[in-house]
């Protein structure tokens, strides 16, 4: 750790403040609560000094100075607001507005425009120019990026965020001075990562989003902060929603308030790919197979049929004749409920999901250790990062953003070991290209097995890399699914020896949650093996679960083909396409599929139930690092149900007392005397408050938060601060310490999703935006000879 920088004292507007040496004056003032207006200055980007809005008076300096380019000095006396400064800023605004079209009524930025706000503040509404303004037609640069040149105020934020922040360098400046023009890399269009960061960061409406353009206005929407449903990084995306004919429609996604681990970052998927929810192909009513055709039916008929069939199979052939497949994109509460339903109601351990990372193996390897997992926030501040396998730019865009910015802003050292020339090599202190499939051997090499080096690559280079890594303090190691099974253990050993923390990268939004919540045939929530449950957990419902490990996903399909699996319940998953399984296996199996679309698996089903997606329900997700975050209901389609409700209703239709699944009870948690207002006829203010805080009174069996209590009680590592969680903060969960012994991990069953920046499993297939940009070949920055920042 470097020594803390020296503090300097200065006076701003008569107030004495201190700031670390080297701080920009504008930052120092902001930290002291004094806001200085700015356009071109943006925290975390390089200094531009283009707009001159941040002018301040510094004593002993002639003329006004730009506070975004001035570093604090000992004894500085600064004035941030007086008549002279006011007048200077007003004149700057008049110049900015000289060719501005002032078409606020149609501009997308209207209502949240920094130029509007500034003009209001400084009253620069009058134009002193009589010349006709220079008009240019709006240009479409890509399916998601539009540019309206006259509105641009040349702050260059877009250019910098694209280059420095995204390392894409797709935007540039043509010409000089007042005639400068922002231009895309392909002359008249963009080929880039389509992240939309440039649109978001634009202080005015010069860059606008193809998805949101001209649709509505900021104040017409409700803004709901929830978690992105695509990759496993868990960005918070704030969805703007508006009433529509069918419920609530999602109009846009962004994260301008910088809440959440991602700050204002979102990749194309988090920002635009919510459009699957309004795809016309979406199923909105239950379908039942009659005469070998799926026909619309009522929910009641569907529940009745499912319940009678499942009961019949369970009572006749036993629970082992029923299989359940869960999802990587349903909430923790739903996953927990699903496995509880399988184990208690269906009396089976045949439950599995699409595995994208070896979490049981990770937990086994971490046995006996403490605090050895890193959170997504740690990645942004760690002094050094080791990345083994995976391509975060494509598969974990937020992780890549954190790494890039950590390297750029904090001079963190990035060590990359990969079998491909991944883009993050540009930020790497050391990039080591290894032969494909030798990531595991590299892990062995790290713990001193020198003979493993020969299969990895050049031993000398590897040795020097290992020496460097051994010298790193506070290292964070992120590894992809290339490392699994027996190879995780050496990596953990190495991490222990240098005091490093680890991240095991899983692919989908709640892959980690699905693992933690026990969507395994042999593991209960919290990675308790079904066969050897010990201690107090036995007294809880877990003691009533079958003790015999069940079938894995692949085994279920072969059992179905062999006629031994008579019923299959698939929640939000498409195993037939994902594992390329034989569709005929399900011919004689009663199959229920809960999904948004008629996927390859759903078309084979006997009953298809329309499910809500993650943007349409509450609950929690655990990201790939183990950060627990809260989901809030944003969109709504009135005719579909959440997976949670569907499972409870099926259990109910089967005659099971749902209190045994969801601990809900009137009067108990809901009303500890607080709600008396309602009885006396007043508005139930406590209930309103509780609901607003997300601490809903638990009166409903469909309330996922009722189950969160149980999860927090029974799943080790999930005992995080409930208040913080409900306030929307990410809470890092610890991996349960299983003591000694090995968990069954089946590394051979792991199938990486292989999603790219522009694909996202089934959801991606039904997202028009993602499909529209997929044809774009991205330009590799090297081709243009641009060095990494």
């Amino acid at each position, binding site marked *: 750790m470097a020594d803390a920088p020296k503090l300097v004292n200065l006076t701003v507007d008569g107030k004495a403040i201190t700031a670390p040496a080297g701080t920009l004056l504008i930052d120092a003032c902001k930290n002291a609560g004094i806001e200085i207006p700015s356009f071109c200055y943006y925290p975390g980007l390089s200094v531009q000094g283009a707009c001159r809005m941040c002018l301040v008076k510094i004593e002993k300096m002639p003329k006004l100075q730009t506070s975004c380019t001035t570093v604090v000095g000992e004894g500085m006396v600064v004035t941030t607001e007086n008549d002279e400064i006011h007048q200077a800023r007003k004149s700057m605004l008049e110049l900015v507005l000289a060719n501005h079209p002032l078409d606020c009524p*149609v501009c997308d930025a209207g209502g949240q425009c920094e130029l509007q706000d500034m003009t209001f503040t400084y009253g620069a509404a009058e134009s002193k120019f009589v010349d006709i303004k220079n008009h240019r037609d709006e240009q479409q640069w890509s399916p998601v990026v539009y540019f309206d040149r006259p509105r641009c105020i040349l702050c260059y934020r877009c250019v910098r965020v694209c280059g420095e922040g995204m390392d894409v360098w797709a935007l540039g400046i043509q010409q000089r001075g007042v005639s400068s023009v922002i231009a895309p890399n392909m002359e008249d269009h963009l080929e880039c990562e389509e992240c939309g960061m440039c649109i978001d960061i634009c202080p005015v409406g010069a860059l606008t989003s193809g998805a949101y353009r001209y649709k509505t206005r900021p104040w017409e929407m409700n803004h709901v902060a929830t978690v992105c449903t695509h990759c496993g990084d868990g960005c918070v995306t704030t969805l703007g929603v508006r009433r529509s004919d069918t419920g609530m429609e999602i109009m846009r996604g962004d994260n301008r308030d910088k809440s959440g681990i991602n700050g204002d970052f979102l990749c194309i998927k988090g920002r635009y790919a919510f459009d699957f929810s309004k795809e016309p192909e979406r199923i909105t009513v239950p379908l039942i197979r009659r005469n070998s055709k799926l026909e619309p039916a009522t929910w009641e008929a569907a529940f009745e049929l499912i319940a009678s069939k499942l009961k019949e199979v369970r009572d006749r052939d036993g629970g082992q004749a029923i299989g359940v497949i869960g999802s990587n994109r349903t909430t923790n509460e739903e996953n927990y409920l699903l496995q509880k339903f399988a184990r208690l109601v269906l009396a089976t351990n045949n439950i599995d999901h699409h595995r994208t990372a070896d979490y049981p193996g990770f937990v086994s390897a971490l046995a006996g250790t403490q605090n050895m997992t890193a959170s997504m926030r740690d990645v942004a501040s760690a002094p050094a990062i080791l990345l083994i396998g995976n391509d975060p730019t494509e598969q974990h865009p937020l992780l890549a953003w954190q790494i890039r910015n950590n390297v750029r802003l904090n001079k963190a050292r990035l060590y990359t070991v990969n079998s491909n020339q991944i883009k993050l090599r540009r930020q790497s202190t050391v990039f080591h290209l290894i032969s494909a499939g030798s990531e595991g051997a590299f892990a062995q090499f790290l713990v001193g097995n020198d003979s493993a080096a020969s299969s990895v690559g050049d031993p000398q280079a590897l040795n020097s890399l290992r020496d460097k890594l051994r010298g790193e303090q506070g290292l964070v190691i992120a590894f992809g699914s290339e490392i699994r099974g027996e190879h995780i253990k050496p990596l953990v050993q190495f991490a222990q020896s240098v005091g490093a923390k680890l991240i095991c990268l899983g692919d989908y939004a709640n892959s980690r949650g699905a693992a933690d919540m026990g969507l395994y045939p042999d593991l209960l929530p919290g990675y308790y093996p079904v066969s050897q449950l010990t201690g107090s957990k036995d007294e809880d419902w877990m003691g009533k679960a079958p003790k015999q490990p069940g079938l894995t996903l692949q085994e279920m399909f072969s059992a179905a083909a062999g006629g031994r699996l008579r019923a299959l319940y698939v929640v939000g998953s498409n195993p037939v396409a994902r594992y390329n399984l034989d569709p005929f296996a399900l011919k004689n199996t009663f199959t229920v599929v809960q999904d948004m679309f008629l996927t390859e698996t759903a078309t084979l089903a006997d009953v298809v139930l329309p499910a809500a997606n993650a943007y349409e329900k509450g609950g929690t997700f655990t990201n790939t690092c183990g950060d627990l975050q809260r989901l809030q209901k944003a969109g709504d389609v009135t005719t579909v149900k959440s997976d949670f409700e569907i499972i409870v209703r099926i259990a109910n239709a089967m005659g099971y007392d749902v209190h045994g699944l969801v601990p809900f009870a009137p009067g108990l948690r809901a009303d500890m005397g607080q709600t008396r207002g309602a009885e006396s006829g007043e508005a139930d203010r406590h209930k309103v408050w509780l609901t607003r805080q997300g601490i809903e009174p638990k009166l409903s069996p469909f309330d996922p938060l009722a189950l969160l209590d149980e999860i927090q009680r029974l799943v080790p590592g999930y005992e995080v601060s409930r208040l913080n969680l409900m306030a929307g903060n990410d809470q890092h969960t610890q991996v349960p310490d299983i003591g000694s012994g090995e968990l069954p991990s089946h590394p051979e069953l792991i199938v990486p999703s292989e999603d790219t920046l522009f694909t996202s499993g089934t959801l991606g297939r039904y997202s028009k935006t993602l499909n529209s940009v997929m044809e774009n070949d991205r330009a590799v920055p090297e081709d243009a000879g641009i060095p990494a920042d």
Partner: protein
Amino acid sequence: MPILKNIAAIAKGMSITLKEMFAPTVVENYPDGPGPLKGAKFQERFRGVHVLQRDENGLEKCVACFLCAAACPSNCIYIEAAENTAENRISGAERYAKVYNIDYNRCIFCGYCVEACPTDAITHGHGFELATFNASNLVYRKEQLLAPMPAHLGANAVFNKAEIDKGMPALTS
């Protein structure tokens, strides 16, 4: 004399009645008066049912900026915006109101919307006979609120008689 007193009182009362009988009428003779307005007379600034105006090219003035909806204290304006295209040009700017409803169950005729409109698209007209037996009839759609096309561009020659009298060609569609 009580009788005299009574007669005097009646005479006094009748004299007021007779005086008023011959005074000019001050109330309006609505709805029995002449003309399309049935005798109703308006101050020019009377705030009645809204009219969504068109520009001189017949394009809608409303650009769906939602400012009227934001200003409306009774929250009765509902708008859906859409983008103009070369083939389907509705308003003069990039955006137009695909749906524009005013719910007259709720409107209080305060005029804030008119005040807020940056393009002078929404104005108060003089329509006031809104009564209906069905409340859902009171949600007026854009088609009901829009001003007719200017006569020289087509429809509604009657309405634009004044313009035609001034020499505009009256095209009929």
